């Protein structure tokens, strides 16, 4: 692993942060399968590889990126190639109250906002991967929406891995700050121009929502199916804020996403939706944790999985309700569709409730396509294979329907249709 120090343009205050993170990682090392949090997700292939730093100079054109921009040139889009910001490929519209810049740029000029947020929402103790990411902080996206500003046209943070990335690791660091009363939509996507490339992406995204802030955060992970992706998103929410997440995972040989939301005051709403589509030998793991620390908050979580081939899915959803968090309303659902005999899911909802006046439920299901629905479709003239695709798509589309912004929803539907071969 290359040393964290020695990057000239980093501000002084960051140096001890990176140093502490590196020390932390040096102390813990990579987790092993003896670690309960990583029991179902062996990360040996990551730990045992000697990763190069991500190459910064990959030749790439705007045309090559078009298919990842969803045909929305009007979205502000920051493009990162193998982890590094590329201004000539990016488009950031100037909008009052909205700051969308690369972290590298922000580190040069935005000291205050970064200093008060970086590492505060996703501490290095969160996981060895968070520590490693922090030790390597260099670039990523900063989205800063100032108080009262509303921007519902999505802001897209687009991370592209190129063929040159093979054998390398990137550690993007993102910060999304939505201040009091502001509203925004952010799409964070991880894509590849190298469908067979074996590389590692280790991103951390910190999200801070002020009082009455509103954020729809869509995360799309479609890395190479030979790549590794260990992502972590930590969200801190203030009073009356609303966070709506949609996390889609369809890439990666081994892919993991940890999503943690901390509800720091009353009347907070947290909606976590997810969809994972796996095939071949993929392993896709979603770990979520919701911390209900205060009364009168609501969290609602639905993750769905469609697993094919010999792939594996892991879902672990934790909900912690503190004694003082009375009137908590929390519901968690994980539903899985197994398309083959070889596919497998390990699902574990975990509710730890210490308050007595709450409404908390959870449920997990694992099943195959409904025979009756298949017959019904076929009896209308739809061939069996097409009916299977249609019903599989329907299963997935049901959770995509929860994405509130139409253009984002349509893009997700298109991606799933493409993946499933549905029309």
């Amino acid at each position, binding site marked *: 692993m290359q040393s964290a120090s020695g990057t000239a343009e980093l501000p002084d205050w960051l140096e001890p942060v990176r140093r502490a993170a590196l020390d932390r990682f040096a102390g813990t090392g990579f987790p092993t399968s003896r670690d309960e949090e990583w029991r179902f997700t062996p990360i040996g292939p990551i730990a045992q590889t000697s990763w190069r730093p991500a190459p910064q100079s990959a030749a790439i054109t705007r045309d090559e990126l078009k298919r990842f921009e969803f045909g929305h040139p009007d979205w502000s889009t920051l493009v990162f190639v193998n982890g590094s910001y590329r201004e000539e490929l990016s488009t950031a519209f100037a909008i009052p109250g909205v700051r969308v810049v690369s972290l590298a740029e922000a580190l040069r000029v935005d000291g205050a906002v970064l200093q008060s947020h970086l590492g505060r929402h996703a501490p290095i103790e969160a996981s060895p991967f968070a520590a490693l990411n922090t030790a390597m902080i260099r670039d990523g996206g900063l989205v800063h929406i100032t108080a009262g500003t509303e921007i519902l046209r999505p802001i897209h943070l687009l991370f592209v891995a190129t063929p040159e990335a093979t054998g390398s690791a990137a550690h993007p660091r993102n910060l999304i700050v939505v201040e009091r009363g502001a509203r925004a939509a952010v799409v964070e996507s991880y894509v590849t121009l190298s469908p067979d490339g074996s590389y590692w992406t280790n991103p951390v995204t910190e999200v801070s929502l002020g009082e009455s802030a509103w954020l729809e955060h869509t995360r799309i992970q479609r890395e190479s199916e030979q790549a590794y992706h260990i992502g972590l998103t930590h969200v801190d929410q203030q009073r009356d804020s609303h966070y709506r997440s949609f996390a889609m995972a369809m890439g990666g040989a081994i892919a993991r996403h940890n999503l943690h939301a901390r509800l720091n005051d009353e009347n907070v709403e947290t909606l976590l939706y997810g969809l994972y589509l796996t095939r071949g030998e993929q392993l896709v793991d979603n770990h979520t944790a919701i911390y209900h620390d205060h009364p009168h908050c609501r969290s609602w979580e639905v993750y769905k999985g469609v697993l094919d081939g010999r792939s594996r899915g892991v879902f672990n959803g934790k909900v912690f309700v503190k004694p003082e968090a009375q009137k908590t309303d929390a519901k968690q659902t994980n539903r899985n569709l197994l398309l083959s005999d070889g596919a497998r899911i390990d699902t574990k909802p975990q509710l730890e409730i210490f308050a007595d006046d709450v409404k908390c439920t959870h449920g997990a299901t694992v099943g195959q396509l409904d025979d009756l629905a298949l017959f019904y479709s*076929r009896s209308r003239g739809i061939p069996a294979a097409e009916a299977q695709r*249609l019903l599989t798509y329907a299963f997935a*589309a049901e959770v995509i329907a929860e994405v509130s912004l139409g253009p984002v929803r349509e893009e997700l539907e298109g991606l799933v249709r493409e993946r499933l071969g549905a029309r």
Partner: protein
Amino acid sequence: MTTPLLEVKGLRASAGDKEILRGIDLTVHLGEVHAVMGPNGSGKSTLAQVIAGHPAYQVTAGEILYQGQDLLDMEPEERAQAGVFLAFQYPVEIPGVSNAYFLRAAYNEIQKARGLEEVDSIDFLDLLEEKLKVVEWGPEIMSRAVNSGFSGGEKKRNEILQMAVLQPRLAVLDETDSGLDIDALRIVAGGVNALRRPENATVLVTHYQRLLNYIVPDHVHVLSAGRIVRSGGKELALELEERGYEWLEDEALTS
């Protein structure tokens, strides 16, 4: 004599170890409406579902000819593409697929199988406009998920809408009247009547004579314990209404 649209000959069928149909003979010609009546458990719905190709039933003897072709040799989708339609007793909910998408997919598959042109979503909306009138519906219903959260009556109307769009040659309506209030019954029956043509035929499977006040059948058959025990004209239905099914069941046992 023209080839019948449907010929069921000596049909026996089981679900698992249980034999349900025990030798059915039924012939339907184009332009006809047949009512198949009988008490619960007599095998009416099984007959309807075997015609559509429901995988839960095994045919153990006999045959079904559709336009002279071996229907049992065809997959459910091939039957539909050839013009067979079953209005389900319990229409299936498909969350996540809009009514419009589902119906257009079905319509296009049938068009394709018949060597006709598929339609895009805009042309399909035009086509729907007229069909929706058959069931007295506005276009809003098309953006809802297939049968998902529909009331019992809405589900049955949706079956008739599908039938209106897919224009089957042989429509089998499995207890489409059960559970309907008078208004829904009137709409459903009105739809069936509106779709009645010399070039198609309808088999109504029903427990109650009530439906036959709205749709007048040419032939009535009474099913009991997996066999047709009596066939007649529409007056047979009225006799059943008066006397119930028991006398026929008793007759069947003693014959």
